[in-house]
């Protein structure tokens, strides 16, 4: 097995609570958006990062690219430590790491044509200019399956699927090795979603890309990822190869999440575990195991309410943060 391209160790991102009363009152509680997250991604592979809204999965994606400054932790991408780089070095590393955003409606500049949008990164990184840049734009459009005549269009003239292809082309324009895909298909209709997922998988093959694929849809992640990490309240609660995680989930949250996904087969009468209550606020996470107030595990006891479970190997290669991960549910 080759060395990881992306290595994240103990990543922490806290947002300071703002002060009430125009900044004069007592500071509010710190929001622990990401609270000690570690994972590694092998070159050419995809790690799926899943969880519900507010679990911190997007913050992880943005922080490792330093689109947001981390509170603590270490990230090594392509052999370089991301958090210690100066502005110039960081800009150079940005060529190697890019992001595709969820909403293709708001992540493209409405005043720029597709051609301008795609030429901008080429100019910033001095990769091509003039006719060379136009040839590059045409090649990129072809690679993501768009007609080169669309180069003159503005984003509002494109469909959602076309816009997301432009977003992907923009990310690829600087020839990165690592791509953070932050919910890249969740704003799209299923038939278009399938097109874009196929495209991302083809590009990964052709360019040997490494993906951090952030999504809330477990079925989509099953399709694209080799490894899956499940987040809850800023922490990874389970991390395993996709095959194992979907076949035999170990954390009660993963089990509940998988059972809650509606399956398009009326004959599949599966046992749905319906969790009670809402996700607690990351500003005041519960003591002990963050999942304990909603946990349906029959063995749940006092220990869960007081002692934070460590993320540990339950079987080789499959990590779960639960005191009772070995017990059947």
């Amino acid at each position: 097995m080759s060395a990881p391209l992306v290595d994240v160790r103990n990543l922490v991102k806290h947002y300071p609570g703002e002060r009430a009363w125009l900044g004069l009152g007592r500071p509010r509680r710190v929001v622990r958006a990401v609270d000690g997250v570690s994972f590694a991604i092998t070159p050419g592979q995809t790690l799926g990062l899943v969880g519900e809204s507010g679990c911190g999965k997007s913050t992880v994606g943005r922080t490792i690219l330093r689109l947001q400054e981390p509170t603590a932790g270490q990230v090594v991408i392509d052999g370089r430590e991301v958090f210690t780089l100066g502005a110039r070095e960081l800009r150079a590393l940005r060529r190697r790491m890019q992001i595709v955003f969820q909403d293709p409606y708001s992540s493209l500049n409405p005043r720029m044509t597709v051609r301008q949008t795609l030429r901008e990164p080429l100019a910033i990184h001095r990769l091509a200019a003039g006719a060379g840049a136009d040839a590059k734009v045409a090649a990129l459009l072809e690679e993501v399956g768009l007609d080169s005549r669309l180069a003159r269009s503005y984003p509002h003239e494109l469909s959602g699927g076309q816009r997301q292809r432009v977003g992907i082309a923009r990310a690829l324009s600087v020839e990165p090795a690592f791509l953070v895909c932050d919910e890249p298909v969740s704003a799209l209709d299923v038939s278009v979603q399938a097109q874009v997922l196929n495209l991302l998988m083809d590009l990964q093959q052709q360019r040997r890309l490494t993906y951090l694929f952030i999504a809330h849809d477990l079925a989509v992640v099953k399709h694209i990822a080799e490894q899956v990490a499940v987040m809850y309240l800023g922490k990874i609660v389970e991390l395993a190869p996709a095959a194992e995680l979907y076949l035999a989930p170990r954390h009660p949250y993963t089990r509940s999440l998988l059972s809650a996904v509606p399956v398009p087969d009326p004959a599949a009468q599966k046992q749905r575990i319906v969790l009670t209550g809402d996700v607690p606020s990351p500003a005041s996470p519960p003591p002990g195991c963050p999942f304990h107030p909603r946990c349906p595990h029959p063995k749940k006891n006092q220990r869960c309410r007081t002692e934070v479970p460590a993320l540990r190997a339950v079987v080789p290669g499959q990590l779960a943060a639960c005191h009772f991960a070995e017990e059947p549910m």
Partner: protein
Amino acid sequence: MKEPLLRVRDLKTYFVTERGRGTARAVDGVSFDLYPGETLGIVGESGCGKTVTSLSILRLIPEPPGHIRPGSFIEFEGRNLLTLSPPELRAVRGNRIAMIFQEPMTSLNPVFTVGDQIAEAAIVHQRLSRRAARARALEMLRLVGIPDPEARLDDYPHQLSGGICQRVMIAMALVCHPQVLIADEPTTALDVTIQAQILELLERLQAELGMAIMLITHDLGIVAGSADRVVVMYAGQVVETAPTPELFTRAQHPYTEGLMASVPRLDRPPAARLHSIPGNVPAATDWPSGCRFHPRCPYAWDKCRAEEPPLLETGGAGHTARCWLVAEPQRRMRRS
């Protein structure tokens, strides 16, 4: 078979586009029935006309730019909803037919408490006193399973989570015990564990109160789990309708087939590639000639480009599909 509760016939809802340059035929000749106590799933992708259909039933289409064409017909309790006077319509809306929307956070009024918003319908339609209506609102919050309902009664929507807001919306909709509940993507904005809670709640309330539910969704998984019958829409038309088990085992329309094949599945090993439907949904101002799906259809032949197919009986009970393949099934073989 029971008499339908709601009968939609040849519904056409058109919109005049910006600067009057064209007409968007958002809903273009839709017909279906809703039976008492059943859950009817209406599925389709964005722009297929499913939401405009539901808004037309309650006449919530803004006019202009929209208008429901003469000849459209929506029968409910022996009357055509499209010809009711405003006071008659008000007696139906929120009372006999209620609706819940996709975005619970934006569908509630931010400046009134939850209790006041639920009580309003009871005051207007059932002429309850304020005190009685407040008691009724509390009863409704209990019914939809909101924890600590007494305290929630005086909360404002911004103090509540998305899942609780959707429960409040459901409580508001059901306060007058409607015969029909139209649920337009009721769980799309919610997380999957909260979605499971809301779907289970709707199931339980339907069993307790006996209303018919029109469940509008883009999610075939939700349809499979919750609907008794399904109407599939594409390009402003009904393209297939069938009882749920029949649709999922013997889909006839290539669009339905394509839609089912493009969903990534949790219950199957991942395939190397997902099936995808080529191209995009056409614009409502310019539907293709003949069968509206023909530019994206793998089976299309000359007839499909020239002649629009009607909804044809497929042979299965209550199963119709708008596709010439139903009449010429050998063409399906020839391709595969």
